[in-house]
């Protein structure tokens, strides 16, 4: 597996992180080394082994379908960078 600068650029785009040319030069060899190092897992025979997503392996609990929270608009908005009349504000997305 080879991680070149264009792969890093694509991955950074997927992760919504802006990267400069300097960043690409910095991260490409590091990501390449890390991914090369984890390649060693390929030597483990995992035929017939079920993936383990979570050690607790419990069925998720269901709760009653009732409103149990809410009425806290103030708290929900208090850390927002910008709000107007009870709404979050973002850059205009529809022309």
């Amino acid at each position, binding site marked *: 597996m080879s991680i070149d600068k264009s792969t890093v650029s694509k991955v950074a785009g997927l*992760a919504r992180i802006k990267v400069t040319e300097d960043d690409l030069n910095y991260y490409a060899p590091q990501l390449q*080394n890390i*991914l090369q190092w984890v390649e060693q897992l390929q030597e*483990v025979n995992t035929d017939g082994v079920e993936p*383990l997503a979570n*050690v607790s392996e*419990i069925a998720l609990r269901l709760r009653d379908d009732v409103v149990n929270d809410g009425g806290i608009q103030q708290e929900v908005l208090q*850390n927002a960078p*910008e709000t107007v009349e009870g709404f979050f504000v973002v850059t205009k997305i529809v022309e």
Partner: protein
Amino acid sequence: MSHNLISLTITEALNGLKSKKFTATELVTAHINQMQSPSCRALNAFITETAEQALAQAKNSDSRIANGTSLPLDGIPIAMKDLFCTKGVRTTAASNILNDFIPPYESTVSQKLLDAGTITVGKANLDEFAMGGSNTTSYYGPVENPWKSKTHPDKKLVPGGSSGGSAAAVAAGMAMGATGTDTGGSTRQPGSFCGIVGVKPTYGRCSRWGIIAFASSLDQAGAFARTVEDSALLLQHMSGFDPKDSTSAGQPVPDFAALLKQDVKGLRVGIPKEYRVEGMPQDIIDIWEKGAAMLKDAGAIIVDISLPHTKYAVPTYYIIAPAEASSNLARYDGVRYGLRVDGKDLQDTYENTRAAGFGAEVKRRIMIGTYCLSAGYYDAYYTKAQKVRRLISEDFTKAFEHCDVILTPTAPSSAFAIGENTDDPIKMYLGDVFTIPASMAGLPGISVPAGLDDQGLPLGLQIIGRAWDEVTMFKAAHALEQQAAFSTQPVLIKDAA
């Protein structure tokens, strides 16, 4: 007086408060004074000090103690890792992206500790989003270990990570105990580096609600203290079922502190041969062998065991943890809370915000995780890692047919200098080689200070227990602690008379 107060164990302090030898206000003041002394502040153990709030709480503790309604840990000053959301108190995860974040709610674990009467003196520094093993990735600067090397006293050493501020605060007498979190070793390894006890319970024992998420299938709260008994007391009051965490278990919480003094006669202690890794320093091999001999002297039986997939645990972790992190950290978009750096459109705002808000290690892990989860690579990396994770977990199940606890070194080295290992991520990642396997299997683990290396720096030994059997783990840890009789303290606490 104040020197005495910062050297007490939690158990001794509770007795002192009860018998009115000193007040909670005096106890908390002594720790705040230590925290605010220039030599302690230089360690950078706290991101936010909460002295004023702590003193107000201490007054309440004193009234409860006076009228006979005291809580189980009333008046005990602790440090809170700045990954636990605390209502009305800034919570940063040591990241620029949460620099101004003030949670409108309290995490379940910190609420439980409040309900038990503990008093938080400050929010402790950590690696950014708990990603690191040396507390050097914090936006607020690295934490320095209160211990100094005998041979290189001028070197500033790391406290371990990610809960480095918590560990340094407890080791230097700024708090009697502390919360940590442990995803791959973040309480056990700093415990070892700072000469104190660091414990992580079984996955599901403590609620994750209100702990800023890193890798959800691995994250667990943990505790630091200067004795095994104190760590058991803290953990006891942090544990228990919480409907707000979908992986919180409904298991009853035993009285850890009351049960840990039981005899270890006949206890089977497993020594995994695969933990004798290539290039391991002689000091580490020696302390491990000494630890086994100590437990044997206490009546335990030493058995050789095998955990064949040990060498794959760290690479497995470095797929699973970044994958989960990339997903968890997608929420930091500059819209609802946290930093925002405006761009020409929404996409550009996201990218600017995340570029400015996250540090290099966090970006590295998000990108690794994004890559491993992306179309065409998901099965080759993520599913493969989950399969190996099952094999690692099954290794432990099989080993526990032959033993009751497992004894290993906590870390492959003592504390190293700030700046070492930072250019080579893989070298840094391998510092967690002995702690990650138990994390992958969700098992409880504890690091107990067992001795000093040739530089006079503390070395810890790890006891791993069966799932939900923290009691046996604590018993073995307590026996080891009694035998090792580790009593050395860093100069900072000795000088604070």
